[in-house]
């Protein structure tokens, strides 16, 4: 086992660290494909229901706060940037930068959820809720509950992914502090980065679909 003595993170069934890294990448990309398909169902449902009920969807989207939506888009984009910098720092053996950028990403993720919380509580207050919970008064166009069904399902599922991502970032942050990563081994940072970009990407589509399109 002298061959693997310098590679404490090489699992026994892989011959080389490169093989392990590439296998991990394949696995992550496949997982991301399943995520896109999962959200795909919601996008198709949204598209179909919107085409059936264009007036209600157009009317309902005015209840969303574009400024907060835009702010959140910027926050997520910046967090994607800090994630890239974290991966770069891992690859170039700069541990302090790695820790700093991971922590920054985590903060931005928290800010995103905070803004989302403000938006959600506003909707709760106004009775702009999904399905049978919808109780907004004074609608001129009927059927707006459908829009909010999709709004909450899409942003809710996305929010769950943000939470999952924060858990994953926290995990690699902890391992970074413990000094597990170096230019020889930083697979988890890389994979969590990929996942985080996907979560960001999905929001890039949610923002115009829900907030902007008339």
């Amino acid at each position: 086992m002298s061959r693997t003595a310098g590679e404490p993170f090489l699992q026994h069934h892989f011959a080389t660290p490169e093989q392990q890294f590439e296998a991990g990448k394949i696995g992550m990309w496949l997982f991301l494909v399943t995520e896109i398909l999962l959200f795909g169902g919601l996008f198709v449902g949204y598209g179909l229901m919107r085409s059936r009920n264009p007036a209600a969807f157009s009317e309902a989207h005015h209840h969303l706060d574009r400024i907060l939506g835009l702010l959140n888009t910027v926050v997520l984009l910046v967090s994607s940037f800090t994630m890239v910098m974290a991966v770069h720092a891992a690859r170039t053996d700069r541990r302090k930068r790695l820790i700093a950028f991971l922590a920054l990403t985590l903060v931005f993720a928290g800010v995103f959820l905070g803004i989302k919380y403000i938006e959600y509580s506003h909707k709760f207050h106004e009775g702009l809720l999904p399905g049978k919970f919808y109780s907004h008064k004074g609608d001129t166009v009927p059927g707006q509950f459908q829009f909010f069904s999709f709004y909450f399902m899409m942003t809710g599922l996305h929010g769950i992914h943000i939470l999952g991502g924060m858990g994953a970032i926290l995990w690699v942050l902890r391992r970074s502090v413990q000094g597990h990563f170096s230019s020889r081994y930083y697979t988890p940072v890389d994979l969590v980065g990929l996942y985080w970009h996907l979560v960001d990407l999905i929001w890039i589509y949610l923002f115009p679909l829900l907030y902007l399109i008339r």
Partner: protein
Amino acid sequence: MKGTNYLTETRGLKSWLFTLDHKRIGVMYFWSIMTAFFLGGVFAMLVRIELLTPGRTIMSAEAYNRMFTLHGAVMVFLVLIPSIAATLGNFVLPLMLGAKDVAFPRLNLASYWVYVTGALFALYSMLAGGIDTGWTFYTPYSTSTGGAVTAMVLAAFILGFSTIFTGINFIATIHKLRAPGLTWFKMPLFVWGMYATSIIQVLATPILGITLILLLMERLFQIGIFDARLGGDPLLFQHFFWFYSHPVVYIMILPGMAIMSEVIPVFSRKTIFGYKAIAFSSIAIAVVGFFVWGHHMFVSGQSPLAGAIFSFLTFLVAIPSAVKVFNWLATMYKGSISLEAPMLYAISFLLLFAIGGLTGLFLGSIATDVHLHDTYFVVAHFHFVMFGGTVIAFLAGIHYWWPKMFGRMYSEKWARVSAVLVFVGFNLTFIPQFIMGSRGMPRRYYNYLPQFQPMHVASTIGSWVLGLGFLIMAGYLFASLRKPYDAPANPWGGATLEWETASPPITHNFETTPAISHGPYDYAALRSDA
């Protein structure tokens, strides 16, 4: 077999429940799925007994609706979908590649535990009153009927993750863990079949996931997507559901075909005919299978143009399927065929799958489907494919790899008796269903016209013969486990890598990473080696 092997290396329940060894995980999957299979089989027997006479025989109409739903849901979600891939695939695939394990052993274990969790949800649903929606959960009935629908839908949702995990694992394993020199076209065809299966598992299962979530949201919160009263569209559910559930048919049958491509050449002592054609036809089935879902909806009111296109694409799937069957027949032609149990099952498969496939064409063409839709003809057709295809192939695989998995030979004599009983019982059960279906007996009905009774009786007697066959099988398989290890490393003279290691294999599969000295079906090279 003096030294330790993967079964004896460590002992105790914990060493099994938390194992990362793909072989042990495969074995755990095997026993779990067999338990579910037994349960689903009991439901089927009860359904058949109820149908012995028109009207009430042993249970009420409500109980009957629950019974056939549970039979379908258990068999599809707990048995057929994971069956071959999660058990034999898990066990054999890394061995065939000369690998020490799958790419992500922890994910593999997680897949098993997710499966168990899903199974527990399904069990809860059964105990909490069961469901009567049919396994297809069609809306708006499923969003409004009583019963433990929520628990069963959650079960199917959770089970989907275990499928996805297996799929991701196999694809990464096949790409990255082949032994040096094992190029793509030197892989056994079983691996090609698993690769195609995994692609569908990864691409189709998430759609089921989101569909079931939307169904639950509609049921619990009336979000207005599948229920027309709320502005939703019930057809959208059917599209979503079949966009997953037709490809899932290929998740079930492709592994069966993969086993055929191993068993038939070994027991014909002849190299496989048309290796590349079989390999690519698996991929072709996987791809085309994604574009035929609408053939489940010919009478649903979808547009006639869509119907015509779906019908055409459905016929297209017949081509790669036929390519495989003809290649297997050509492999057998002038071979030195020996009729041990795995080969008996393989020949059963060829006969039954041919009937299942050809009757599918009647359902795939729009005009005849309008007549046959929702009759027993459909029931018989998919049982010929799912049982005559997948389960029979699974049995072939179990008998073929049993010596490798458990290190013991089973009684060949009793295995042949049971194979014949299963074949006869199956045909007796389902051929009458083709006949009464074509004469208009609707599926899922509790009551029926007296003229159908003789065929229902024949079908029920068939189910008893089938049950007897399985009983005998359980008997000799369990009996074999009580013997000392007596299986040689290569009892059938196979040329794929799993036969080069001991039976049962050591924990790390091979003493040293195997060198690829001959092709997977090169039996001449095997003889000169020995």
